């Protein structure tokens, strides 16, 4: 930044115009060449982009994943147990009917209408069909 400084009269005392020019050149040289931005905002600008990059709910995905895991571990055994119970029940009704412990059940002969109690390997099984026993 070149600044022209006016000459001073040889008498030693500068004239008014010379003093004006000298003072103006001096103060212009003293002023910062590039006026800096306010530091308080400059410091904050260094932080703000990071803040903007953060999502609105920064823990949302993590919490959703955790909730899904908990739900899986809670619901999984329940589902599996209910599934296998149902499978066992279906198997029992088709191949191994549930054992009847009702001693009042009436034994009838095969081929008779109504409930038919079938004897199989010394155990009593019920097979539903026909009318109720008389």
């Amino acid at each position, binding site marked *: 930044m070149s600044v022209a400084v006016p000459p001073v009269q040889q008498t030693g*005392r500068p004239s008014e115009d010379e003093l004006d020019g000298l003072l103006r050149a001096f103060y212009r040289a003293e002023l910062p060449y590039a006026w800096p931005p*306010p530091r308080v905002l400059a410091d904050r600008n260094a932080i703000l982009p990071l803040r903007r990059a953060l999502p609105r709910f920064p823990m949302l995905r993590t919490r959703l994943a955790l909730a899904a895991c908990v739900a899986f571990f809670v619901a999984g055994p329940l589902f599996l147990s209910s599934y296998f119970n149902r499978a066992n029940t279906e198997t029992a009704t088709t191949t191994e009917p549930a054992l009847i412990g009702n001693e009042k059940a009436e034994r009838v002969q095969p081929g008779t209408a109504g409930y038919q109690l079938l004897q199989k390997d010394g155990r009593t099984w019920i097979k539903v069909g026909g009318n109720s026993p008389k």
Partner: protein
Amino acid sequence: MSPIPNPGPPDRAEFEALYQHHSREVWALAYARWMNADTAMDIAQETFLRLWREWEKGERILNPRAWLLRVARNLAEDYAKSAFRRNGTHPPQTMNGVQAHDLPPLEILEREEAFAHLRKELEQLPQADREILTLRYALDYNTGEIAGLLAIKESAVHMRLSRARQRLAGRLRDTNGDLRP
């Protein structure tokens, strides 16, 4: 000019506008006190930092310009008592051997010598003289603007400016310094 509560966060745009309009004035007042551009800039930045903090606390400054100038004057005075000025952040010998990237040309050296002489004489003037000279020659303020900033009449500005120039010219004559580069 007592601060009143200002609900809501500080307004960045308003702050930047204030900085744009008044930071040079704040700098000029601090410079007139210390005749050091870097110190003046530090004081100016600290002044605006305090304004921002006031806003963050929910205070509204009714006349920000007057508030800034008053705080800048106080900070400039406090700077004389600060530990930073007394001790500095580093011992002076730390800077031994540190050189500028480029050696300044002879013209700049001569100009700096002339400016150093002028600075020495300016430092001997009363602070009021330095303030008015700084506003006039650093910021190119006219008498009306100076009067508004210093809260004095324009006639007083004319008188103080004239006297300041006379005092400075007299000192330059007495020292008979060669101000030519």
